[in-house]
Every structure is written in structure tokens, then in C-alpha cells.
């Protein structure tokens, strides 16, 4: 038996090419940030030191060079016995949505639905406009905008597509000391997650849930949660912004139609008006001159 973190043989997964996913069992995350470091190391992303955030959190959120961030959430219920307060560590990263706001938002198709269920970002195509950042319902992709920059690009978790397509588990999965980040075929993970949730419910976590199974057409980052998603700062029923959808589905076509119609109207006019003559003094509306 290999590591408890690996649910499907990564070699087999790479050969089959079917959808894979990660599942983070937050009931076992110890907030050690090893995954953050492994992610930076594998992807050779620059360190970016944040100011003191008043908690154990390293960065305010996902940054273009910081693709996975453990969020530290203290949940203290005053009315309860002090022994049952909770301190949650939430590994955030791109969810690799089936219906991805970032893909919808990206104006240059730098973001695409990629291999093995991932959402891939082509950094060479990326122009740093930040639309994806605002299209993502999870704050999982970021562009560090500056007033006049040309080198800023979007950055987000790749699901280690360069590793998984070559039969290696993602770097964070490889490093997590508690094996709480699982990797495997998406179906396998969902099966595992459901079982795990049932177990947790039996242990008294009535609100335990598997997150990501159906959200946005199915996420490729799943979570086992001990409590409802809000407690973890995860959106219940996340949606791609309807305004974004309207922009892409209504405004763009309408605008293109308007411009196109104008163009063709003028083209027709160009030929139709060919025989009309330019104003000469004789053509001048005499009445006006005389008045």
C-alpha cells in the first residue's frame, strides 16, 4: 500500500488521461504550510513577504506567485464551553472548476479547460488584465496589478499539470505530512469523500460535507469539511457572476452586431451614394441664402 494520500496510481492516471482531482480533508490539515512551500519550490515561484496579518496566515490570499495559501480561521462561539472552539486551516487554491469563471472571463483565451480536468493558464498568452481574478468565485487566481506594468501575469495553481501528466502526484500532495491532501481520479476521490463524510457524521459532525462534487459543474479540488462551507469561507452554491455572463453572452454579441451593422450600412451607402453629387454653389439651398 502506498501513501494514504494517493488514491489512484499517478502513472495509471497519466496514461488514462481521465479527470483527476485533489481532495483536501480539512479535518486532518494541521496548518503547517508545507504545501505552500512545496508549491513554491516546484513551481519556482518567488517568495513574497506580507506584512503581519494578525494571525498565523502567511499571505492575505492567493497571489500571482503564491498559488496555495492556508487560511487560518478562528471560530469561537462564546456560548459554548471553551473546549470546543475551533481553529480551522483551509488550504485554498484553484478549484479547477468544470464551469470556470476565469475561463469565461479571460479575453485572450489564456485560460482554457485543459488536460485531465485541470483549468490551464497559458502564461505566454496572458496579458495581465486581471479579468480572471474577478471572474473566479473563489479568489483563486490573482494578478498583482500595478499602475503601469507590462510584466504582471495571472498566476494560479496548475494542479501540477506538468507533474500529473507525467505520472507524479502534485507537489503539495507529495509533501503534506498528514496525507490530508489526496490525489486520484475524481470519481475515486468522490467515493472516498462520501465515505469519509459518513464517518465524520457518525462521529458527531452533523454538518460534515463533501464540497465540490456538484459546485460549478463539479470542482477538481474537493474538500471534506467538518462543518458547513460558510465556516470555511467557502461560497455555498458558488456561481460565475451573472454580470460577467451577461457581458460575454449579451453585450459582446450585441456590440459586435451594432458595429457590424454600421459597417455594412455604410458600405452599402458608399455604393448607393456614389452618384450623388457633392454640394456646388448652384446646389446650395437658395432659399436659405436669400433669406
Amino acid at each position: 500500500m502506498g501513501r494514504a494520500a494517493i488514491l489512484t496510481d499517478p502513472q495509471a492516471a497519466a496514461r488514462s488521461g481521465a479527470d483527476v482531482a485533489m481532495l483536501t480533508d480539512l479535518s486532518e490539515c494541521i496548518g503547517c504550510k508545507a504545501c505552500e512551500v512545496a508549491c513554491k519550490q516546484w513551481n519556482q515561484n518567488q517568495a513574497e513577504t506580507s506584512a503581519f496579518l494578525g494571525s498565523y496566515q502567511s499571505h492575505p490570499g492567493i497571489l500571482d506567485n503564491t498559488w496555495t495559501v492556508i487560511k487560518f480561521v478562528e471560530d469561537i462561539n462564546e456560548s459554548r464551553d471553551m473546549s470546543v472552539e475551533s481553529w480551522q486551516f483551509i488550504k485554498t487554491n484553484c478549484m479547477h472548476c468544470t464551469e470556470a469563471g476565469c475561463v469565461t472571463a479571460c479575453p485572450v483565451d489564456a485560460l482554457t479547460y485543459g488536460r485531465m480536468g485541470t483549468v490551464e493558464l497559458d502564461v505566454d498568452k496572458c496579458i495581465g488584465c486581471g479579468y480572471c481574478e474577478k471572474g473566479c468565485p473563489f479568489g483563486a487566481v490573482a494578478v498583482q496589478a500595478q499602475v503601469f506594468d507590462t510584466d504582471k501575469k495571472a498566476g494560479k495553481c496548475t494542479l501540477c499539470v506538468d507533474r500529473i501528466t507525467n505520472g507524479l502526484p502534485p507537489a503539495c500532495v507529495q509533501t503534506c505530512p498528514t496525507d490530508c491532501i489526496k490525489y486520484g481520479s475524481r470519481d475515486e476521490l468522490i467515493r472516498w469523500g462520501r465515505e469519509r463524510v459518513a464517518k465524520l457524521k457518525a462521529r458527531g459532525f452533523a454538518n460534515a460535507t463533501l464540497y465540490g462534487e456538484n459546485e460549478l459543474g463539479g470542482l477538481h479540488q474537493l474538500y471534506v469539511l467538518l462543518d458547513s462551507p460558510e465556516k470555511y469561507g467557502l461560497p455555498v452554491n458558488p456561481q460565475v457572476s451573472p454580470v460577467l455572463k451577461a457581458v460575454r453572452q449579451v453585450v459582446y454579441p450585441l456590440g459586435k452586431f451594432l458595429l457590424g451593422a454600421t459597417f455594412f450600412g455604410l458600405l452599402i451607402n458608399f455604393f448607393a451614394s456614389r452618384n450623388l453629387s457633392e454640394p456646388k454653389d448652384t446646389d446650395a439651398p437658395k432659399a436659405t441664402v436669400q433669406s
Partner: protein
Amino acid sequence: MTTALWDVPRTDLVVFMGSNAAENHPISMKWFLRAKENGAKFIVLDPRFTRSASKADWYIPFRSGTDIVVLGGLIRYAIENNRIQRDYVVHYTNAPLLLDPKFEFHEGLFTGWDEDAKTYNRSTWTYQTNGSGQPLRDDTLQHPNCVYQHLRRLYSKYTPEMVSRVTGIPVETFLQLAEEVTATAAPDKSAVFAYAMGWTQHTKGVQNIRTAAILQLLLGNIGVPGGGIAALRGHANVQGATDLAVLWHDLPGYLGTPRSSHRTLDEFIERTTPKTGYWINKKKFMVSLLKAWWGDKATPENDFAYHYLPKGRADKHAYSHYDIFQDALDGVVKALVVFGQNPAVGSADATRVQQALAKLDWLVVVDIFQNDTSEFWKLPGVDPRSIQTEVFFLPAAGPLEKPGSFTNTHRLIQWKHRVIEPIGESKGDLWYANALALRLKRLYADSTKPQDEPIKYLHWDYGAGIDEEPDSELVLKEINGYEWATRRQLSSFGELKDDGSTAAGCWIYTGVYTEQGNIAASRNKNADDYLHHGWGFAWPSNRRVLYNRSSADPQGRPWAESKRLIWWDGQKWTGLDVPDMLPVPPDGYNPTYGVGGDNPFIMKEWGVGGLFGPLQEGPFPVHYEPIEAPVANLLYAQEKNPVARVFSRVGDVRQFPYVMTTYRLTEHLTSGIMTRWLPWLAEAFPEPFVELSPELAQQHGIRTGDWVRVATARGEARVKALVTRRLKPLVVDGRVIYQIGVPIHWSTRGIVTGEIANRLTPQFQDPNVQIQESKAFLATIEKLA
């Protein structure tokens, strides 16, 4: 640790006390979580709600420095409610043995206290024996002089109410805890206690652990599956450093150190070795060690070169870390060689350490980075013009740049290979040691003075000349031991002899490098063996769970089907692990060792676990307040550990009203040298902070993110405030006590910097191992503009 992490998932109860494994031993945490998965209850007791607490079923805050009261209360509860595993206690521990009738305990002191000498005369701390030297015993545990009754009387004061008054744990909570813990006295139940610096860094550090050991023995939880005391070691190789005695009070393999009063080898052995149990072989280990060090120059005729060993001065109590710096301050120590350490930041009362460094003639620092010790003259508050110390910095190779072995927390020795060549001019520690040793030997080669012989005749052969790369496998081979004449590698310490025919650098490691090769490098994955024999080598004898004979009842049958580990199959001891037992049937007796087949603790006298066990401050652990405590000792007139050592200034509770504790974070390692210089780790936790409760913060008008000054009688540090409900004010003896906590990782050098927290901590030391009391002392706090 007595057990293996692989065995932890078999437990029924995990208790973290003085441990924050999630943060400080994250790799080990997996096994505790597995135990929880398997249905074990997981309880964390800690002054702070830590990342470990977040994973527990139950978190109980208590006042730092009162562990013995909690554990003593549990012992009392177990005894009073008969929640002990009686068969185990009677047969496997010294509970039934009768103590000297004159031995007693009164108001915090045991018999034999010499107020003038500030030390104990231990003459009454002994058993009553019959004519043949056998201890008298009462297996009914009723005799007033038996160890068990002593325990009962000693802890009778540790009532739930008293526990609550001293520790701040509500009575109800404590009773629930006691129920949970003592339920594991059942033969088919076990509990594991995990500890680390939270227990050790006190003036009674060793006694904290002793108390837990006593409790676990009473509950029958040592040597059984899922049982034991899990001592979590902080660095990759701290266990190895201890085993190989990078210490002042031991020779490799826990052989102790001779004093000037031990004039001959035999005298040393005689005075420091029990007459029963496996230690009667100590001379074999000792002679083999001397043979490994001085080879042909260690002969029966010269007492195996015993006189080459340095001996402690009769007038000097200890040569510990803090004594070195004290001696430097006193002008006794004039030069210092520091390998892989940064005491100017990492040691308690860092200002004193810095002052000591300034007194040295010269200082050598071997490290992978320039650090605050090698550049101590640049530290704030230090005037470089007044310092004459000459400093040499030698660049060291990092862990991946050299081959060698790590001995990890569960005594598992694993070989690692070199991954990359050392960068630039840096060299491994072994290279430096070899270069230094060979240079010294050259210097003394022509000396005829007898005092130079230890160096002149030192047996040193690691396959490299001066400035050449030594072969680290040769070092491991020597540690393992070999037959002197043939150089045949030995496979068990049973082969060691006291006639000079064998050499071994650390007897407990014998078996790690045999004729079969480097066993530490073995990597056999055997899915069926949950203890993973075939992966690396665990000392002793590749045994994964120590004292595992106690997993079977006196007749040699497992206590419970679910707790099978070792058993007697009619012919021999066998089971899932390498049996920790002499080849004696359950009803047999080995007169050589004085150990019966139902005495599993073969390293101990008569093979029984030590409920009674003399240490510097007494044979039983009792509660003493920390040197700096916010309340008086509610249990005894003797307030503090009478033999604790106090080097630093002691603060007054009126000036410093809060209980302070220091600790480490997952993101950084000790003084931060290996982490704050690495951008990816530096960013993981960039700034130093103090954690405090909202109640205390409010009193000082402090909000999260404010700069605050934390001060103690030693010094002060400016850090950011982190106000959190994870710290709770406690009610101790009717008063509200606030606790604050500061991590120790920052210094003025590195990618991320901060003020040095160890300027706050005290040099108040435990008398047994000289560890500082950096987990419980007094401080005050103030908001900075």
C-alpha cells in the same frame, strides 16, 4: 520514545501534554491522527490552544508549570478509585517493594535534605532487602513502606479541588479527564502520552516526565500496543545526538561519565551500575567504547585507557550548556568551538550568552550561514570596540550535502545519501572533525608528556588524511562495533566483551552495520508488518516498541486479543516485534541478571519498572512552582525545586504579573538560521509576535497588530500583538492569571528579522539535565506608541 509512531494508531487515548506535535513534529502528527481515525480519543492539555489542539477531541487549558499537579492528580484518582492495572503493577513495577522505613516526605522535602549543602543525602532512598540482597515485597500492596503506599500517601493531597486551585482546570473538567485517562487501566485499553519541550523546559523537567511514566505504569500502558511515552524529538537527529552523547553527562549509549572520584574503571562500573538487570553488562560496553577510541593502546594492563577519559571535577556539579557560558563569564572557559548552533539567539537569557561570548579569547563558529553568534558583536546593545574576541567562521555543508545517518524520534536510524556536493568552500562537520583531530594528533605526535597521550594515541581512522573527505560509513561501522583483531562487524551487543577483544562506539547501535552491510540504509517495504522491520534500524536490536514483554501477562499471554504484540509460544518469546526479554520462560528466573520471566523491564534493577526512582530532587516527583511563579506553592512549604540552579535574575510577580511561555512554530527552526534565510520559509511566518488573550489586551489597550514591549527581569523585546481567544485567562487559587506566549525564532539577521525573544527567558535549570525553564516564567507587557 518508548514506542514507535507506527504503533501509535493502536491506542485508545492520545494525550498531548507539553507537546504540540502538529506544529513542532508535523511528520509525527499523522500517526496521532490515524489513532483518532481508529476511534481513539485525542486530548490536548496546553496553556495555549495550538494547532495540535485544533485537531483534538478535547482541549484543556492549564497554567504552565503545573504539569505534575495534573498528573499527580491523575495518579491519585487512579489509586483512590482502583483504576490501576493491578497485575501489571504488582509484577512489572517496583510498587510492591518495601522502602527503607526511615524514608519519608514532608512539606516538599524528602529525608536526607542538607540545607547547608543544598543537596540530598540519599542513604534512605533504598529498598529493604533480605540477607541475600533481594528486596522485600508485599504483593498485596498494603504494607505502609511499599512503594505503592508511598505513592498513595504522597499524592493524596492532589485532590481534584487542589488540582483545580493550582492549575486552573475546573474540577468537573479534571474529573472527566481523570475518567478518560484511567479508563485505559483496563487490560484491553492503552493510552499514549506525547511530550516535548512543554515538559522538559522547566526546573523540574525530568520529574514532569517521571510523573507521566509513573501514571502510565500504574495504568499498565508501557510496552503495550498503543501505549508508551512518546518523547518527540525536535530536530531530525536529536535522538542521535543524545544516543551518541553530544552531552556533558553521558558517554555514548547512556554509559554515564566518570568523576575524578572514580579512580579505576572497575570503581566507576561498581559505583554507577545496578547489580541486577541488563546493565550488569556495562563493563563490556565501556571497554568496547574505550577500545574503539584508543585501540591497541587500550589494554587490560592499562585499564583499557580509562585514565584517558576526562573526569568531572569533584567540586563541580555540571558542565552543561549554561555552565559553559557561566564559566566563560567567570574567565574559566577561554575559547569555544560552536558547531551548528546559535546560542546568542537560541539560548535562554541570550544577553548573558552574548556577554559570555565577548569574554572569550577566540570563538570558532561552524555553520551554514553567518549567524548572530559568529557576528555577536553586531547585535544591538553590543559595543564592538570593547570586544577582543577573535572569531573564526567556517562554512558548513547543509544536510543534503553530506551523507550520514539520522536517528529519528522513534530511535530509527536511517541512512541518507549525499544529494549535491557542498557549495563553495563549505565542508561537512565530519570533515572538520577529521581535519581538527588529525592536526591535533600531528601537533602532539612527538610529545612524551603523559597528558598528551589521549590525543597522541587516539585511534582515528576514517579513511582520510588531513583535508581529505572522511568516509562516514566507517564512522557508522565503528559505532556499530567490530571484533578488534579481525575487524569483523558485530551484529548484536550480546557479542561485546570486556576483555578488549571487541570495539564499539555506541553499544545500543550494534546491529546497525553488520557483515550484511549498512542496515540503516535498508528500505524493505513490507506491507504486512505494521512496525516495518526491514526499514532502517531501530536501536536496540531493531526493536520498535521498548519493554514489549509487558504486552503479555505474567504467564506470557497477550493481555487482550486486540493488544497482541509479544507472547511466549511455549518455547520462546515471539510476536510482532523483536522481543524485549531475556530468553527466560514466564515462570523462569535468570540468576545472573536477577530477572524473572515475568519481569519485563530488563534494563531496570530486578527487571521492574521504576515507580520509585531517585533523581536529584528526590525519588518521587512532587510539585514545585516555577522559579518565577504568580502564586505561592499551595501544596508545600518548600516552594521551589530545592536543587534547581538559578543563574539569571529572578523577577518579582508585582513587577511581572503574567505567566509567559516561549515556543516554536512549524515555519521556523529554533533561532531561525535555517529558515529565516530561506525566502520560502521566511515568508511563511515573517514577523515575531506575542499571543495574548482579549481580556488582557483590553486592560492594556492593545489590539492585534500593535507594537508591544514584552519585558522580564532579564530583558525586553518589541513584537507585534496577536490578540486571540486561543489564550484564556485562568482562575488560579481564586485569582485570574493571564498567560502570554512568544515564539523564539527571530533575530536581527536574516530575510525576516525581529527582536530576540530569548533575551526574556531565564537561565533557571533543572538539576538533572540542566535544561532551562523557558516554558514558565514571569513577564509584563505594554503597548508601544
